[in-house]
């Protein structure tokens, strides 16, 4: 065995995965090998330094943890099995709600500040947990091809809604200035990336 083999054994010993007999052999090697002892010392220093750095790591953005807990509670509540077709209908509903939620949310806020506990935010939270529950439903594997696709859409919508409370919504000018969407809008697209949603409209 060469030193690099012993160094790998040192790694295993450090993680508690080296057998006692190999530990004995390793100890014997370390006793007369300064290179391997230096490796051991450096490994120790690297580990200590890296671990102590963890204390300075900022956690996830405020808002992420509450969303996880909302999802957890919703999951507990959701013991009933949603029928795929019900989910399908709710998908359409959710899409509508999301657009409205986004519009209400953004028009209710001045750019500088957001009211954290207004009614609209509370309703968005309600929808979030509804959709969190939906998101937990299993894919109906035996259904036709269309249904799983609707499910994946549903899941991505739910995901979007889950972080809605903490996000920036970008709207096309005519909506941002306060007018409501009309039937002239042929379709609404939501583009979502992390804490930013872009809503765009196509006109008929």
């Amino acid at each position, binding site marked *: 065995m060469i030193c690099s083999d012993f160094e*790998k054994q040192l790694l295993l010993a450090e993680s508690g995965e080296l057998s006692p007999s190999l530990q004995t052999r390793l100890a014997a090697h370390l006793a007369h090998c300064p290179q391997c002892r230096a490796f051991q010392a450096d490994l120790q220093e*690297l580990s200590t*330094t890296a671990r102590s750095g963890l204390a300075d*790591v900022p*956690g996830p953005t405020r808002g992420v943890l509450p969303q996880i807990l909302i*999802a*957890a509670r919703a999951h507990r509540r959701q013991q009933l099995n949603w029928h795929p077709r019900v989910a399908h209908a709710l998908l359409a509903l959710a899409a509508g709600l999301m657009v409205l939620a986004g519009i209400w949310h953004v028009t209710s806020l001045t750019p500088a500040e957001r009211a954290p506990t207004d009614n609209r935010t509370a309703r968005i939270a309600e929808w979030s947990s509804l959709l969190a529950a939906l998101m937990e439903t299993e894919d109906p594997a035996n259904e036709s091809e269309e249904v799983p696709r609707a499910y994946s859409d549903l899941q991505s919508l739910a995901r979007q809604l889950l972080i809605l409370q903490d996000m920036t919504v970008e709207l096309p000018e005519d909506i941002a200035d306060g007018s409501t969407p009309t039937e002239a809008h042929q379709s609404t697209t939501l583009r979502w*990336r992390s*804490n930013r949603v872009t809503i765009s409209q196509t006109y008929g």
Partner: protein
Amino acid sequence: MEHSDEDLLDRYKSGDTDALTLLVERYRRQLFSFILRMSASAADADEIFQEVWLRIIRKAGSYRRDCFRGWMYKIAHNLLIDHSRRRPMTIVPSMPGEDTQQGFRVDRIPARERSPAADAQGNEMQAVIGQALLKLSAEQREVFLMRVEGDIPFREIARAQGVPINTALARMHYAVCRLRKLLHEERKTMEE
């Protein structure tokens, strides 16, 4: 007495949502640090962190393993790979001799954007290690972080990465050798 991860997960499975809160709190920094160092930005890290827990919530019922931490990191590993596939990235060719067997592309973007954690670190040596980690391949960095910050045994790291244990061990060995070298160079510069 502190409850084990597995106890907390069992309690959550039998309806105690507070047990999950404790688990999330326990791994808040450690898991987030891992995801942050492996992903493109803090916003991505938030998204992936949240998705890890949503997946844990969803799969808790069918969880049968003995090492929760290993399972949690495996989920994070899978999501990081999914994420890097979904998102178009700036691709930088791998360095010669680098281990690219399972290359994910998360790390192939400019270092400036990648290391908010390292920037925030006051301690100089921590910052040096943080920067040095970015010079490793994603697989090597991942093994190092799982092992050192996550305290995950090699058996579980290998499982998470889907490789034999000797591959995980070789990645860690390479990472430590590389970091040692950089550490020594840094120490020399500081002495001069």
